[in-house]
């Protein structure tokens, strides 16, 4: 019988790396999503073009290729990244591109009358966005952001291929050391699933929290 307790330690370490990557990647993705999403709605052609290029580029190429590009090609042109930095960068930029379209859709889903009300109240473009449009639009975006975060969590498994010791990597280590494949892989599948459930539960409670005071205002 194999001594599983030591291996469990490895898996837990891997889970921590996966969680760390998911959180950092999500933060970067959220920032990029708002930058690019707002960029697409901008009055200025240059900003719109930049945002569209970013979105189409990162949605058009595979996350896997982007990660390899960040890890293997960027050092050759003088940008050294640790595996963790490359992972966060690729994950954040990739998921950020998907989420940017969510931001754009969310802002556009807010009715014309809200924009007109902003004008009537003499709010500037930024003020209207900040105090009237975004608080409502954010609620529309939130469920899709939750899905995006789960996609990001699942995409973190790819970083194991650039030697970052996440859950999938540790499962491979355990497999190599014990020769048992069933136990480590089943364990990490369950852990990923639990993490995904936690994420969707967290987003749902955040949604309820933010929806307070908006009853009757929105659909």
């Amino acid at each position, binding site marked *: 019988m194999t001594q599983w307790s030591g291996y469990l330690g490895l898996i837990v370490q891997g889970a921590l790396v996966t969680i760390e990557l998911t959180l950092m990647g999500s933060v970067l993705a959220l920032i990029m999503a708002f930058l690019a999403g707002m960029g697409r709605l901008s009055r200025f052609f240059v900003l719109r073009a930049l945002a569209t290029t970013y979105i189409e580029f990162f949605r058009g190429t595979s996350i896997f290729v982007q990660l390899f590009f960040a890890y293997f090609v960027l050092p050759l042109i003088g940008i050294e990244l640790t595996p963790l930095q490359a992972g966060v960068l690729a994950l954040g930029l990739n998921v950020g591109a998907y989420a940017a379209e969510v931001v754009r859709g969310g802002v556009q889903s807010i009715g014309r009358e809200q924009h007109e009300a902003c004008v009537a109240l003499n709010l500037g473009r930024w003020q209207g966005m900040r105090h009237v449009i975004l608080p409502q639009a954010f609620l529309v975006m939130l469920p899709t952001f939750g899905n995006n975060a789960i996609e990001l969590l699942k995409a973190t498994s790819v970083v194991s291929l650039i030697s970052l010791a996440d859950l999938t990597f540790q499962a491979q280590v355990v497999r190599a050391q014990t020769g048992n494949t069933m136990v480590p*892989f089943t364990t990490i599948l369950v852990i990923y699933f639990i993490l*995904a459930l936690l994420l969707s539960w967290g987003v749902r409670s955040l949604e309820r929290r933010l929806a307070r005071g908006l009853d009757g205002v929105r659909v």
Partner: protein
Amino acid sequence: MEWDWNFVWQIMPTLIQGVKITILATLLGSMLAAVVGLGIALARRSPNKALSRTVGWGAEFIRGTPLLVQLYFIFYVLPDIGILLPPLVAGVIGLGVHYGTYTAEVYRAGIDNVPRGQWEAAKACNLSARHTWTHIIIPQAIPPMIPALANYFIAMFKETPLLSAITVLELMNQAKSVANTYYRYIEPITLVGAFFLIISLCSVVLLRWLERRYDKIER
């Protein structure tokens, strides 16, 4: 390091080999996903509660866990219980089942969108359950969901590089192997990225066309 066109032409034949496998895996995976998705969607509507719950939870689990780990599971764990699969077959099964859980949602929405009257009319015409599905519901449900299905197939295409992790010699794996042989990463990885970008941009055009075409039929 400089970009070297001679090297590009030298590695091109190898990469084209990889492209063929990538496209083959996407096509086979899409077909499997289309079938698996329909199966899941029908099973979830089954009056048999045990069946619909089990399938529902199973699909939820597969959707909440990373494709990479599922591929490892199929490729490394199944041989333990006597199912030995060639890499490409394992990869296609992984892609098909994973995306099948997504397409199942598309089918569900499509089926729910068939008006109630059609069900009642089928009953009034004394059609059996089987005939109702094959002659009334599915022919009406499928066309509106073709754009959404195509969307998932494009997403699947972008996930095919993951198959390199289970030793399928697709584009990414070929690129990695030439990169390791000549120790030049810039050209192979950039070319892989460019290839994915080109195909994705073309598929966006195709998708727009599908959306226009099938929108017209319905309305």
